[in-house]
């Protein structure tokens, strides 16, 4: 079996909060394989967002090692982390986070423009394809404010996938959607996971959403309770 695309080993993340230090992650070790469709589950405040931030290279651990696609992130410069995010990662946010002044197609095109090396014709083609895949071709000229929540999240999915990233991070992608729409979004993600071979890592509270995952990692108080393969970090530490 090939090396895991994401490796967390003994990751500790501490936040200074006034005079005290909040330990958001307390020795998390986790391997994620390429092509997986994995959910991070746990109660509020358990550290789901923090884990996704570590894997998504928007934050680095206080101690321990996070390796994304072969690169240990703790020692990377901001520039290198930015490049890693641009080329290897995609993001889907709980509240969609589209650029309000850009149209659907322009939002999807944005990361391709940042990559810089793709010609206008190729960009146009890829944007059109991606918008088509999420079923928004008729809306592609509209602004995000003219779309429903579910439609906006589809735009976000298209934006995350248009660069053909290795991993897509999604922090509670369905939390701001009604349950039927949420189900549709997860099904779309699952479909893209199958067809594009993209690794998806998402967090959720919702058991119905969780049910779509190939693997469920349960965390609590910054520790892995169940890594979906019958291991828990506490057990490992005790062993």
């Amino acid at each position, binding site marked *: 079996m090939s090396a895991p695309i994401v490796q967390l080993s003994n990751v500790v993340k501490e936040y200074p909060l006034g005079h005290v230090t909040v330990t958001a992650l307390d020795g998390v070790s986790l391997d994620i394989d390429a092509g997986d469709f994995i959910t991070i589950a746990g109660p509020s405040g358990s550290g789901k967002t923090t884990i996704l931030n570590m894997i998504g290279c928007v934050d680095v651990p206080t101690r321990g090692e996070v390796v994304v696609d072969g690169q240990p992130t703790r020692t990377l410069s901001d520039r290198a982390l930015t490049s890693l*995010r641009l080329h290897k990662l995609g993001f889907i946010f709980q509240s969609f986070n589209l650029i309000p002044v850009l149209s659907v197609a322009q939002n999807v095109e944005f990361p391709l423009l940042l990559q810089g090396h793709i010609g206008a014709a190729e960009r146009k083609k890829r944007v059109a394809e991606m918008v088509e895949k999420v079923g928004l071709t008729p809306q592609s000229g509209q602004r995000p404010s003219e779309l429903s929540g579910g439609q906006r999240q589809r735009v976000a999915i298209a934006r995350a996938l248009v660069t053909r990233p290795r991993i897509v991070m999604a922090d509670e992608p369905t939390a701001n959607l009604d349950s039927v729409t949420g189900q549709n979004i997860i099904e779309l993600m699952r479909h893209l996971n199958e067809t594009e071979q993209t690794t998806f890592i998402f967090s959720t509270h919702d058991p119905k959403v969780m049910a779509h995952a190939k693997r469920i990692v349960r965390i609590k108080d910054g520790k892995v309770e169940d890594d979906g393969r019958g291991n828990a970090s506490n057990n490992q530490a005790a062993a």
Partner: protein
Amino acid sequence: MYFTIAVRNLLQAKRRTLLLSLAIGAVTMLLVLLQSLSQGLNETMIQAATTLSAGHVNVAGFFKSKPSDASPILSDAPPLRAILEKETPGLDYVIDRARGWGKIISDSGSVQSGLTGVNLAEERTLTKIVQMARENEYRDNGRDQVLGDINKLAEPGQLMLFAAQARKLNVTVGDQVTISIETIDGQTNTMSGTVCAIARDIGFMSGWSVFLNRSSLKSLYEQADTSTGALMVYLKPGYRGREKEVMDSLRGILESKGYTMMDHDPNPFWMKFDKVLAEDWIGQQIDLTTWEDEVSFLKWVLVALDSITFFLIAVLTFVIAVGIMNTVLMSVRERTREIGTVRAIGLSQSGVLTMFLLESLLLGLFATALGSALGASIAWLIDSSKVAITDDAIKTFVMSDTLHLSVLPQHVITAIIAFTFITGLSALWPALRASRMQPVTAMSSAT
């Protein structure tokens, strides 16, 4: 795409954009207006000065027959004139004017004045620029018509007064006056003259100027015809603004021909008597000046106006810079989540910086272009509507009875570039703050 984002964000925040544009545009407009006023004054001044008392470059000097006296004359003008006409860089033409100082006496009063003896045949701008006054401008119950004719100055015994002098002397065109002067030997000579024309005042300089026929003035002073007051050198349009340069090269040329040159003293000739009297030499020395030197005593008006402009604009600029900074800071705060999002997606720090700076620069460019266009139009409107100046003191200083404003393209362009740059500079700090935001902080912010 940066451009699209910037433009659309500006359009999105309409109120804010409008307010800032108004402020930036207003200051730019003010700057363009004040500059055009200063430029207009400068142009009026050069025109008045070069008509009344100076060429672009003046070749004059003092002749001392003994160390204790000094005549403001060139004792042997023709060879000097020949050199100037041959060797002056950028020369348009040379004219020769005799100079004196004396008293004009009428039945009811007298005035002290500089006397300028002109050879009308070689004068080029005098008859065009000096405007004749209507009789009711210098005489109560005067006729509403121009009397007299400046061209009569070609005849001996004719003189031209300015309105303020005519009013003091209570004379009109055709009246006889007595001109009284004192020669270098202390002898008083007088002659009788006929007022052939009365001109509109050109600022307060004209109050000290009486023009008369050159040979009449020469014979009044009992001077040889080869001596004169000043050779005034006029330059071609391309050489305007390079008077100093031309003056310096003339200095070298004349020195090499054996003339003795006085050190450059940037003042009109009548301020130099005491100095020359105190000096211990005899013979002829040549004094070179530019038109600016000849009106140096008026320059403070321009300096004052420019200082006020600078101070006013500096204060307003500061206020606006703070305003811009604040606005961009607000916009950064509002768009924190957007910044986080684009950073997460892979926009670099410098990309964020570019995004915010571009927005401000576009706003600046738009506002300054509009503001300066408006300023230039207003200046043009004021200038072409020939607004009359009613206050006498102001009239005196601007040397004109209508307000003249002149917009130079380079002033407009400088204003646009400067204020766009200032807008960008004011946005720099908040933009840098935006770019240094951690993507995770930016993302987790509320709203």
